[in-house]
Protein backbone atom coordinates (compact mmCIF):
# COMPACT_ATOMS: atom_id res chain seq x y z
CA UNK A 1 0.00 0.00 0.00
CA UNK A 2 1.57 3.29 -1.01
CA UNK A 3 1.86 6.32 1.21
CA UNK A 4 -0.31 8.50 -1.02
CA UNK A 5 -3.30 6.20 -0.74
CA UNK A 6 -3.15 5.77 3.03
CA UNK A 7 -2.69 9.53 3.41
CA UNK A 8 -5.75 10.10 1.25
CA UNK A 9 -7.76 7.64 3.31
CA UNK A 10 -6.60 9.22 6.53
CA UNK A 11 -7.63 12.68 5.41
CA UNK A 12 -10.99 11.37 4.24
CA UNK A 13 -11.94 8.99 7.05
CA UNK A 14 -9.86 9.65 10.16
CA UNK A 15 -12.55 11.78 11.81
CA UNK A 16 -15.26 9.26 10.98
CA UNK A 17 -13.22 6.51 12.58
CA UNK A 18 -12.47 8.76 15.51
CA UNK A 19 -16.16 9.39 16.19
CA UNK A 20 -17.10 5.77 15.69
CA UNK A 21 -14.53 4.76 18.26
CA UNK A 22 -15.81 7.36 20.70
CA UNK A 23 -19.29 5.84 20.43
CA UNK A 24 -17.93 2.36 20.73
CA UNK A 25 -15.46 2.93 23.54
CA UNK A 26 -17.56 5.55 25.37
CA UNK A 27 -14.55 7.79 25.75
CA UNK A 28 -13.00 10.54 23.62
CA UNK A 29 -9.56 9.17 24.35
CA UNK A 30 -9.33 7.07 21.18
CA UNK A 31 -6.73 8.89 19.06
CA UNK A 32 -4.15 6.17 19.56
CA UNK A 33 -6.71 3.63 18.35
CA UNK A 34 -7.41 5.72 15.25
CA UNK A 35 -3.71 5.62 14.39
CA UNK A 36 -3.67 1.90 15.00
CA UNK A 37 -6.61 1.44 12.64
CA UNK A 38 -4.67 2.99 9.77
CA UNK A 39 -1.50 1.05 10.60
CA UNK A 40 -3.55 -2.16 10.56
CA UNK A 41 -5.01 -1.07 7.23
CA UNK A 42 -1.48 -0.80 5.78
CA UNK A 43 -0.57 -4.23 7.14
CA UNK A 44 -3.77 -5.90 5.92
CA UNK A 45 -4.15 -4.06 2.64
CA UNK A 46 -3.86 -7.34 0.69
CA UNK A 47 -7.20 -8.42 2.17
CA UNK A 48 -8.98 -5.25 1.04
CA UNK A 49 -11.41 -5.86 -1.78
CA UNK A 50 -10.68 -3.20 -4.37
CA UNK A 51 -14.35 -2.73 -5.23
CA UNK A 52 -15.37 -2.37 -1.57
CA UNK A 53 -15.74 0.85 0.38
CA UNK A 54 -12.58 1.97 2.21
CA UNK A 55 -14.76 3.61 4.85
CA UNK A 56 -16.65 0.45 5.81
CA UNK A 57 -13.41 -1.57 5.67
CA UNK A 58 -11.71 0.88 8.03
CA UNK A 59 -14.71 0.83 10.38
CA UNK A 60 -14.54 -2.97 10.40
CA UNK A 61 -10.90 -2.76 11.49
CA UNK A 62 -11.81 -0.12 14.07
CA UNK A 63 -14.61 -2.26 15.48
CA UNK A 64 -12.32 -5.29 15.86
CA UNK A 65 -9.67 -3.17 17.54
CA UNK A 66 -12.26 -1.62 19.83
CA UNK A 67 -13.56 -5.02 20.87
CA UNK A 68 -10.02 -6.18 21.67
CA UNK A 69 -9.30 -2.96 23.53
CA UNK A 70 -12.52 -3.21 25.53
CA UNK A 71 -11.58 -6.72 26.60
CA UNK A 72 -8.22 -5.51 27.86
CA UNK A 73 -9.44 -2.58 29.91
CA UNK A 74 -12.51 -0.59 30.69
CA UNK A 75 -11.88 2.81 29.23
CA UNK A 76 -15.27 4.43 29.58
CA UNK A 77 -15.07 8.05 30.63
CA UNK A 78 -18.61 9.24 30.67
CA UNK A 79 -17.95 12.75 31.86
CA UNK A 80 -15.37 13.44 29.21
CA UNK A 81 -17.66 11.82 26.70
CA UNK A 82 -20.46 14.27 27.49
CA UNK A 83 -18.05 17.17 27.06
CA UNK A 84 -17.60 16.24 23.43
CA UNK A 85 -21.12 17.43 22.69
CA UNK A 86 -21.71 20.99 21.67
CA UNK A 87 -24.75 22.73 22.99
CA UNK A 88 -26.52 25.82 21.82
CA UNK A 89 -25.33 28.78 23.85
CA UNK A 90 -28.89 30.14 24.35
CA UNK A 91 -29.90 27.04 26.33
CA UNK A 92 -30.17 27.53 30.06
CA UNK A 93 -27.75 25.68 32.33
CA UNK A 94 -30.64 23.56 33.60
CA UNK A 95 -31.68 22.59 30.11
CA UNK A 96 -28.12 21.83 29.18
CA UNK A 97 -27.73 19.65 32.25
CA UNK A 98 -30.92 17.79 31.42
CA UNK A 99 -29.75 17.17 27.87
CA UNK A 100 -26.42 15.95 29.15
CA UNK A 101 -28.13 13.59 31.57
CA UNK A 102 -30.32 12.18 28.83
CA UNK A 103 -27.36 11.61 26.50
CA UNK A 104 -25.34 10.02 29.22
CA UNK A 105 -28.21 7.74 30.15
CA UNK A 106 -28.58 6.73 26.53
CA UNK A 107 -24.85 6.07 26.15
CA UNK A 108 -24.80 3.93 29.25
CA UNK A 109 -27.85 1.99 28.08
CA UNK A 110 -26.17 1.37 24.71
CA UNK A 111 -23.01 0.25 26.44
CA UNK A 112 -24.98 -2.32 28.42
CA UNK A 113 -26.54 -3.88 25.33
CA UNK A 114 -25.23 -7.16 24.06
CA UNK A 115 -22.53 -6.90 21.37
CA UNK A 116 -24.58 -7.25 18.17
CA UNK A 117 -27.26 -4.84 19.42
CA UNK A 118 -24.62 -2.30 20.35
CA UNK A 119 -23.01 -2.69 16.93
CA UNK A 120 -26.18 -2.07 14.99
CA UNK A 121 -27.33 0.81 17.25
CA UNK A 122 -24.04 2.65 16.80
CA UNK A 123 -23.78 2.01 13.06
CA UNK A 124 -27.41 2.44 12.05
CA UNK A 125 -28.76 4.63 14.85
CA UNK A 126 -25.93 7.04 15.65
CA UNK A 127 -23.70 7.00 12.58
CA UNK A 128 -26.69 6.54 10.29
CA UNK A 129 -24.88 4.20 7.93
CA UNK A 130 -27.05 2.52 5.34
CA UNK A 131 -28.32 -1.02 5.78
CA UNK A 132 -25.85 -2.15 3.10
CA UNK A 133 -22.89 -0.41 4.75
CA UNK A 134 -23.83 -1.79 8.16
CA UNK A 135 -24.20 -5.26 6.65
CA UNK A 136 -20.77 -4.93 5.00
CA UNK A 137 -19.10 -4.02 8.30
CA UNK A 138 -20.87 -6.67 10.39
CA UNK A 139 -20.89 -9.29 7.58
CA UNK A 140 -24.63 -9.56 7.87
CA UNK A 141 -27.38 -9.69 5.30
CA UNK A 142 -29.58 -6.62 4.83
CA UNK A 143 -32.51 -8.48 6.37
CA UNK A 144 -30.52 -9.36 9.45
CA UNK A 145 -29.38 -5.76 9.83
CA UNK A 146 -32.95 -4.47 9.72
CA UNK A 147 -34.32 -7.14 12.04
CA UNK A 148 -31.49 -6.84 14.55
CA UNK A 149 -31.72 -3.05 14.53
CA UNK A 150 -35.43 -3.28 15.33
CA UNK A 151 -34.78 -5.71 18.18
CA UNK A 152 -31.88 -3.59 19.44
CA UNK A 153 -34.10 -0.51 19.63
CA UNK A 154 -36.62 -2.44 21.70
CA UNK A 155 -33.90 -3.72 24.00
CA UNK A 156 -32.47 -0.22 24.36
CA UNK A 157 -35.89 1.24 25.14
CA UNK A 158 -36.40 -1.39 27.82
CA UNK A 159 -33.00 -0.65 29.39
CA UNK A 160 -33.83 3.07 29.58
CA UNK A 161 -37.33 2.47 30.96
CA UNK A 162 -35.96 0.16 33.61
CA UNK A 163 -33.77 3.06 34.69
CA UNK A 164 -30.70 0.88 35.07
CA UNK A 165 -28.44 3.63 33.88
CA UNK A 166 -27.03 6.23 36.20
CA UNK A 167 -24.21 8.70 36.05
CA UNK A 168 -21.14 7.17 37.57
Amino acid at each position, binding site marked *: *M*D*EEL*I*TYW*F*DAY*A*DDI*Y*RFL*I*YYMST*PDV*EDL*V*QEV*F*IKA*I*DRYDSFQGNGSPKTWLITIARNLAIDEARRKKRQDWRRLIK*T*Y*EFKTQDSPEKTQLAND*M*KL*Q*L*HQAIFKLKQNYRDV*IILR*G*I*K*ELSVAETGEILKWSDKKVSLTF*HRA*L*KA*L*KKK*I*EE*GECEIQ
Partner: protein
Amino acid sequence: MKYNEDELQKELKELKISGSINQHKKESMKWTIKEHARKKRRRRKYKQVIVWASTAAALFLACIVLFHMIDNNQSVLPADDHGETEHENSIHHKQSADTSEEMTLSVHEGETEKKTIPIEGMEEEVTVTNYVIEPYGIHYQMEEFLNNYQVEDDAVKYSTEAENAWIRLEVAENTILDKVISDMETQYTADFFYKEEPTGTSQEENQYEGITQHFSDPPQGYYAYQIGENVLIIQYEYTIEAGDGMGPRLQALRKSIK
Protein backbone atom coordinates in the same frame (compact mmCIF):
# COMPACT_ATOMS: atom_id res chain seq x y z
CA MET B 1 -38.48 8.03 30.75
CA LYS B 2 -40.55 6.54 27.96
CA TYR B 3 -39.73 6.54 24.22
CA ASN B 4 -41.48 5.27 21.21
CA GLU B 5 -39.23 3.82 18.52
CA ASP B 6 -39.13 6.97 16.36
CA GLU B 7 -38.28 9.17 19.30
CA LEU B 8 -35.57 6.80 20.31
CA GLN B 9 -34.06 6.89 16.86
CA LYS B 10 -34.18 10.67 16.98
CA GLU B 11 -32.42 10.65 20.33
CA LEU B 12 -29.78 8.33 18.91
CA LYS B 13 -29.13 10.74 16.05
CA GLU B 14 -28.70 13.45 18.69
CA LEU B 15 -25.82 11.44 20.09
CA LYS B 16 -23.88 12.10 16.93
CA ILE B 17 -20.93 14.26 17.71
CA SER B 18 -19.19 16.63 15.34
CA GLY B 19 -15.85 16.56 17.06
CA SER B 20 -12.68 15.75 15.16
CA ILE B 21 -9.08 14.97 15.91
CA ASN B 22 -6.92 17.94 16.83
CA GLN B 23 -5.13 19.18 13.71
CA HIS B 24 -1.69 19.09 15.30
CA LYS B 25 -2.33 15.57 16.55
CA LYS B 26 -3.67 14.62 13.15
CA GLU B 27 -0.44 15.71 11.42
CA SER B 28 1.60 13.73 13.90
CA MET B 29 -0.55 10.63 13.33
CA LYS B 30 -0.33 11.08 9.58
CA TRP B 31 3.46 11.25 9.71
CA THR B 32 3.58 8.05 11.81
CA ILE B 33 1.23 6.26 9.41
CA LYS B 34 3.20 7.38 6.34
CA GLU B 35 6.43 6.26 7.98
CA HIS B 36 4.87 2.88 8.68
CA ALA B 37 3.76 2.65 5.04
CA ARG B 38 7.32 3.48 3.88
CA LYS B 39 8.83 0.82 6.15
CA LYS B 40 6.26 -1.70 5.03
CA ARG B 41 7.04 -0.97 1.38
CA ARG B 42 10.79 -1.32 2.00
CA ARG B 43 10.24 -4.62 3.82
CA ARG B 44 8.03 -5.85 0.99
CA LYS B 45 10.63 -4.92 -1.61
CA TYR B 46 13.32 -6.60 0.45
CA LYS B 47 11.17 -9.71 0.72
CA GLN B 48 10.51 -9.64 -3.02
CA VAL B 49 14.24 -9.39 -3.69
CA ILE B 50 14.88 -12.30 -1.32
CA VAL B 51 12.12 -14.37 -2.92
CA TRP B 52 13.31 -13.48 -6.42
CA ALA B 53 16.93 -14.26 -5.58
CA SER B 54 16.10 -17.56 -3.89
CA THR B 55 13.78 -18.54 -6.75
CA ALA B 56 16.47 -17.66 -9.29
CA ALA B 57 19.04 -19.64 -7.31
CA ALA B 58 16.67 -22.62 -7.06
CA LEU B 59 15.97 -22.49 -10.80
CA PHE B 60 19.67 -22.21 -11.54
CA LEU B 61 20.44 -25.25 -9.38
CA ALA B 62 17.52 -27.14 -10.92
CA CYS B 63 18.88 -26.35 -14.39
CA ILE B 64 22.32 -27.60 -13.40
CA VAL B 65 20.86 -30.80 -11.98
CA LEU B 66 18.66 -31.25 -15.05
CA PHE B 67 21.59 -30.61 -17.36
CA HIS B 68 23.64 -33.25 -15.57
CA MET B 69 20.75 -35.69 -15.67
CA ILE B 70 20.34 -35.15 -19.42
CA ASP B 71 24.05 -35.26 -19.96
CA ASN B 72 24.51 -38.46 -18.01
CA ASN B 73 21.37 -40.39 -18.81
CA GLN B 74 20.07 -38.82 -22.02
CA SER B 75 16.74 -39.36 -20.36
CA VAL B 76 14.84 -36.61 -22.16
CA LEU B 77 15.74 -37.43 -25.75
CA PRO B 78 12.99 -38.26 -28.24
CA ALA B 79 11.96 -41.90 -28.27
CA ASP B 80 13.95 -42.84 -31.39
CA ASP B 81 17.11 -41.15 -30.25
CA HIS B 82 16.55 -42.52 -26.81
CA GLY B 83 16.40 -46.02 -28.19
CA GLU B 84 19.47 -45.43 -30.26
CA THR B 85 21.25 -44.00 -27.30
CA GLU B 86 20.22 -46.90 -25.18
CA HIS B 87 21.60 -49.16 -27.85
CA GLU B 88 24.82 -47.19 -27.91
CA ASN B 89 24.92 -47.32 -24.18
CA SER B 90 24.36 -51.02 -24.20
CA ILE B 91 27.23 -51.41 -26.62
CA HIS B 92 29.32 -49.15 -24.49
CA HIS B 93 28.43 -51.14 -21.43
CA LYS B 94 29.15 -54.40 -23.22
CA GLN B 95 32.47 -53.06 -24.19
CA SER B 96 33.03 -51.94 -20.66
CA ALA B 97 31.93 -55.30 -19.41
CA ASP B 98 34.12 -56.93 -21.95
CA THR B 99 36.92 -54.70 -20.90
CA SER B 100 36.44 -55.61 -17.31
CA GLU B 101 36.52 -59.29 -18.18
CA GLU B 102 38.81 -59.28 -21.22
CA MET B 103 40.47 -56.29 -22.79
CA THR B 104 39.75 -55.59 -26.46
CA LEU B 105 42.64 -56.48 -28.67
CA SER B 106 43.94 -54.05 -31.23
CA VAL B 107 47.02 -54.09 -33.51
CA HIS B 108 49.20 -51.11 -34.21
CA GLU B 109 51.25 -51.31 -37.36
CA GLY B 110 54.70 -49.72 -37.13
CA GLU B 111 57.57 -49.10 -39.48
CA THR B 112 59.14 -51.69 -41.74
CA GLU B 113 62.74 -52.75 -41.73
CA LYS B 114 65.07 -55.07 -43.62
CA LYS B 115 66.14 -58.33 -42.11
CA THR B 116 68.05 -61.35 -43.25
CA ILE B 117 66.60 -64.79 -42.66
CA PRO B 118 67.73 -68.21 -43.96
CA ILE B 119 65.26 -69.55 -46.50
CA GLU B 120 65.94 -72.86 -48.20
CA GLY B 121 69.59 -72.70 -47.08
CA MET B 122 70.11 -69.23 -48.46
CA GLU B 123 70.36 -65.97 -46.55
CA GLU B 124 67.61 -63.87 -47.89
CA GLU B 125 66.89 -60.24 -47.14
CA VAL B 126 63.25 -59.69 -46.39
CA THR B 127 61.13 -56.80 -45.26
CA VAL B 128 59.47 -57.13 -41.91
CA THR B 129 56.86 -54.89 -40.36
CA ASN B 130 56.80 -54.04 -36.71
CA TYR B 131 53.52 -54.58 -34.91
CA VAL B 132 52.27 -54.10 -31.37
CA ILE B 133 49.31 -55.93 -29.87
CA GLU B 134 47.53 -53.56 -27.56
CA PRO B 135 46.63 -53.17 -24.81
CA TYR B 136 49.15 -55.85 -23.90
CA GLY B 137 52.15 -54.07 -25.41
CA ILE B 138 53.47 -57.21 -27.11
CA HIS B 139 55.89 -56.27 -29.90
CA TYR B 140 56.70 -58.57 -32.83
CA GLN B 141 57.68 -58.51 -36.46
CA MET B 142 55.94 -60.16 -39.42
CA GLU B 143 57.58 -60.80 -42.73
CA GLU B 144 55.93 -59.22 -45.77
CA PHE B 145 55.15 -62.69 -47.15
CA LEU B 146 52.29 -62.65 -44.69
CA ASN B 147 51.28 -59.06 -45.22
CA ASN B 148 47.51 -59.44 -45.16
CA TYR B 149 46.13 -59.22 -41.70
CA GLN B 150 42.88 -58.65 -39.99
CA VAL B 151 41.77 -58.46 -36.42
CA GLU B 152 39.19 -61.10 -35.57
CA ASP B 153 37.52 -60.75 -32.22
CA ASP B 154 40.37 -61.34 -29.81
CA ALA B 155 43.02 -62.30 -32.34
CA VAL B 156 44.92 -61.03 -35.36
CA LYS B 157 45.38 -63.29 -38.36
CA TYR B 158 48.04 -62.81 -41.02
CA SER B 159 47.85 -64.61 -44.34
CA THR B 160 49.67 -64.73 -47.66
CA GLU B 161 48.37 -63.28 -50.91
CA ALA B 162 47.96 -66.86 -52.19
CA GLU B 163 46.16 -67.79 -49.02
CA ASN B 164 48.32 -70.85 -48.66
CA ALA B 165 49.56 -69.95 -45.17
CA TRP B 166 48.35 -68.08 -42.12
CA ILE B 167 49.56 -67.17 -38.69
CA ARG B 168 47.16 -66.22 -35.93
CA LEU B 169 48.14 -64.41 -32.76
CA GLU B 170 45.91 -64.39 -29.72
CA VAL B 171 46.35 -63.28 -26.13
CA ALA B 172 44.68 -65.42 -23.48
CA GLU B 173 44.28 -63.32 -20.41
CA ASN B 174 45.00 -64.30 -16.87
CA THR B 175 45.90 -67.87 -17.63
CA ILE B 176 48.83 -70.24 -17.58
CA LEU B 177 50.49 -72.47 -20.18
CA ASP B 178 49.01 -75.70 -18.81
CA LYS B 179 45.54 -74.34 -19.29
CA VAL B 180 46.34 -73.23 -22.83
CA ILE B 181 47.76 -76.65 -23.70
CA SER B 182 44.58 -78.21 -22.43
CA ASP B 183 42.51 -75.84 -24.59
CA MET B 184 44.68 -76.55 -27.62
CA GLU B 185 44.05 -80.26 -27.27
CA THR B 186 40.40 -79.62 -27.85
CA GLN B 187 41.19 -77.68 -31.03
CA TYR B 188 43.62 -80.10 -32.63
CA THR B 189 41.53 -83.22 -32.53
CA ALA B 190 41.82 -84.29 -36.14
CA ASP B 191 43.38 -87.63 -37.01
CA PHE B 192 46.79 -86.16 -37.88
CA PHE B 193 49.35 -88.11 -39.77
CA TYR B 194 52.00 -86.54 -37.55
CA LYS B 195 51.51 -85.23 -34.04
CA GLU B 196 54.19 -84.02 -31.68
CA GLU B 197 53.84 -83.90 -27.96
CA PRO B 198 53.81 -80.44 -26.39
CA THR B 199 57.43 -79.40 -25.81
CA GLY B 200 59.15 -76.39 -24.36
CA THR B 201 60.31 -73.61 -26.65
CA SER B 202 63.92 -72.53 -27.02
CA GLN B 203 65.03 -69.82 -24.62
CA GLU B 204 67.39 -68.64 -27.33
CA GLU B 205 64.52 -67.43 -29.48
CA ASN B 206 63.03 -65.15 -26.86
CA GLN B 207 63.07 -64.70 -23.14
CA TYR B 208 59.63 -66.14 -22.47
CA GLU B 209 58.75 -69.56 -21.22
CA GLY B 210 56.79 -71.35 -23.91
CA ILE B 211 55.27 -74.54 -25.21
CA THR B 212 54.92 -75.67 -28.79
CA GLN B 213 53.20 -78.49 -30.54
CA HIS B 214 53.29 -79.37 -34.21
CA PHE B 215 50.88 -81.39 -36.33
CA SER B 216 50.53 -82.45 -40.00
CA ASP B 217 49.15 -82.81 -42.59
CA PRO B 218 48.69 -80.03 -43.48
CA PRO B 219 51.46 -78.55 -41.35
CA GLN B 220 49.99 -76.67 -38.43
CA GLY B 221 50.46 -76.14 -34.75
CA TYR B 222 50.95 -73.51 -32.08
CA TYR B 223 53.44 -71.74 -29.87
CA ALA B 224 52.33 -70.46 -26.49
CA TYR B 225 54.35 -68.02 -24.39
CA GLN B 226 53.70 -66.96 -20.86
CA ILE B 227 54.01 -63.18 -20.88
CA GLY B 228 53.24 -61.92 -17.44
CA GLU B 229 49.76 -62.99 -16.42
CA ASN B 230 48.75 -63.64 -20.03
CA VAL B 231 49.65 -66.20 -22.63
CA LEU B 232 50.47 -65.27 -26.22
CA ILE B 233 49.24 -68.02 -28.53
CA ILE B 234 50.64 -68.21 -32.04
CA GLN B 235 48.83 -70.66 -34.28
CA TYR B 236 49.84 -71.39 -37.82
CA GLU B 237 48.92 -73.50 -40.77
CA TYR B 238 50.29 -73.73 -44.30
CA THR B 239 50.26 -75.92 -47.29
CA ILE B 240 53.11 -78.13 -48.32
CA GLU B 241 53.88 -75.74 -51.21
CA ALA B 242 54.45 -72.85 -48.75
CA GLY B 243 56.29 -75.05 -46.33
CA ASP B 244 59.91 -74.25 -47.19
CA GLY B 245 59.71 -70.65 -46.17
CA MET B 246 57.32 -70.87 -43.25
CA GLY B 247 59.74 -72.42 -40.76
CA PRO B 248 62.24 -69.53 -40.98
CA ARG B 249 59.48 -66.94 -41.02
CA LEU B 250 57.88 -68.43 -37.90
CA GLN B 251 61.26 -68.53 -36.24
CA ALA B 252 61.85 -64.85 -37.12
CA LEU B 253 58.48 -64.07 -35.60
CA ARG B 254 59.27 -65.96 -32.40
CA LYS B 255 62.60 -64.20 -32.09
CA SER B 256 61.06 -60.78 -32.52
CA ILE B 257 58.62 -61.18 -29.62
CA LYS B 258 59.30 -58.78 -26.77
